């Protein structure tokens, strides 16, 4: 499957629900989607379109919430697709993708301890990098603390 085919499939399936489709260049594509769609969308990419999960990255934004990017590629293709979701500080909960993508387990634990996002349904939410006696509610990568 080539990239134009994948692009069309994504647009056909989720066209109206995609908030923003931004191609920085032909190899780097950012797709903004609502948080409620994340699990289904990521599952579609990973299971149906055989995408490879690279990593997720979170950033504390000045817009009153945390932005998480889930980066995917499609093996022998140069395109990197980054799914962007916005998590408001009033409700810092995101559905865990660990039951779909096994390799996401560590980064969800990391984002949990560094940015304070709760991944609901994650099998093991212990600290990954920070020590076990790290104080509750202190998040090193948050900008409001």
């Amino acid at each position: 499957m080539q990239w134009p085919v994948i692009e069309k499939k994504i647009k056909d399936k989720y066209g109206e629900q995609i908030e923003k489709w931004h191609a920085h260049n032909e190899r780097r594509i950012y797709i903004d989607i609502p948080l409620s769609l994340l699990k289904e969308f990521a599952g579609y990419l990973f299971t149906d379109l055989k995408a490879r999960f690279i990593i997720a990255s979170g950033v504390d934004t000045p817009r009153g919430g945390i932005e998480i990017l889930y980066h995917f590629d499609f093996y022998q293709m140069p395109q990197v697709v980054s799914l962007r979701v916005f998590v408001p500080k009033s409700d810092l909960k995101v559905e865990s993708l660990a039951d779909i993508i096994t390799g996401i387990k560590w980064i969800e634990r990391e984002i949990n301890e560094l940015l304070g996002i709760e991944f609901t349904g994650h099998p093991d939410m212990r600290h990954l990098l920070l020590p076990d006696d790290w104080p509750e509610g202190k998040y090193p990568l948050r900008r409001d603390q």
Partner: protein
Amino acid sequence: MSEIIPIGPYHPLQEEPEFFRLHVDGEVVSKLDIEIGYNHRAIEKLAESKSWDQVVFLVERICGICSTSHPAASINAQEDLGGIEAPERAQYIRMIICELERIHSHLLWLGLAGHFIGYNTVWMWSWKYREIVCDILEKISGNRQSYAMFKAGGVRRDILEEDIPWIKKYIQKLKPALDLFKGAVMDDPVIHARTKGVGILTKEQAIAYCVVGPTARASDVAIDVRKDDPYFLYNQVEFDEIVLPGGDVFDKAAVRILEMFESVKIIEQCLDKMKPGIVDLHIKELPAGEGIGRAEAPRGEVYHYCLSDGSNFPARYKVRAPSYTNILSNEVACIGQKVADAALVLAAVDPCYCCTERLIVVDRQTGDSRELKGDALIKLSHQYTDEIKQSLGIS
């Protein structure tokens, strides 16, 4: 009931901080817990207080062995952010450094693996020939490690024209050495018995755990950033992507050995194709926006993401080292293995703890735990090799 054997907090083979808790039934591993974070240096947070130029030096400190793959991904991210294309000569110089580093990193791993299974000759020889690579790197950059060569828009030092014939001649010395290792490792019956069918990571598991680099390629997953998303001028040189189907320790070693031949091929092509020209665009500023950079490190794909608000500092800098995904896959690759093999399986992904980051063995029947120190594990492994040698009639 099972016994728990702790290995760590220093890996017995690679002497770096990580912690494995092996749950064993008798001598067979039934479950593995991995703990990292013993040496978290907050590089991502530090990057937010460094200028774009300094970030490249900072990420060079993430890993001492593959000290150029993080700068490579970093400048790829910065150049993606700014839409910059570096001069051709700079691209070739970057590729030469990256490939030399791949050879030295693979030789280093091969030596350690040889030492662990009791082949100290392999250890001594592979580290001896690694010196050739370090000499060339020293000639080019002035440093055996941490070359400080890369910057967005070019490289910091040119390769002198008069040095090129010397490099071409010196690199020829590597070829017989690589042939020797290929024969010594791939045709040896004891190494076959120790590594074939050991620590298998199936293709399905490799995909589920999202592993990268030689770990993926040994499990029949053909990914290599140099081929899939060519950066620098990797699309201008010819080389083969080494993919093997077995997924065991032997195939992981074989991928690395065969890859070194490809790296030599790439270096020779780069030296031939390089034409005189500028090597730096002297980039002063980067715009606001996002950039993603990838590079194929000796251990697999390095992934950098940067967010810029238009100032001189990154607003967010994310680094994903290859070991971060590869080490987690040990969770499945170690199951059903003997304790004597476990540390070898754990090391077969060539984990880099600088990038990520310890073994406890727990007996399920007694609930006792014992900690295996490095010497004890290496002794256990040597004993096992000796047993195999005796059964094969080799002393």
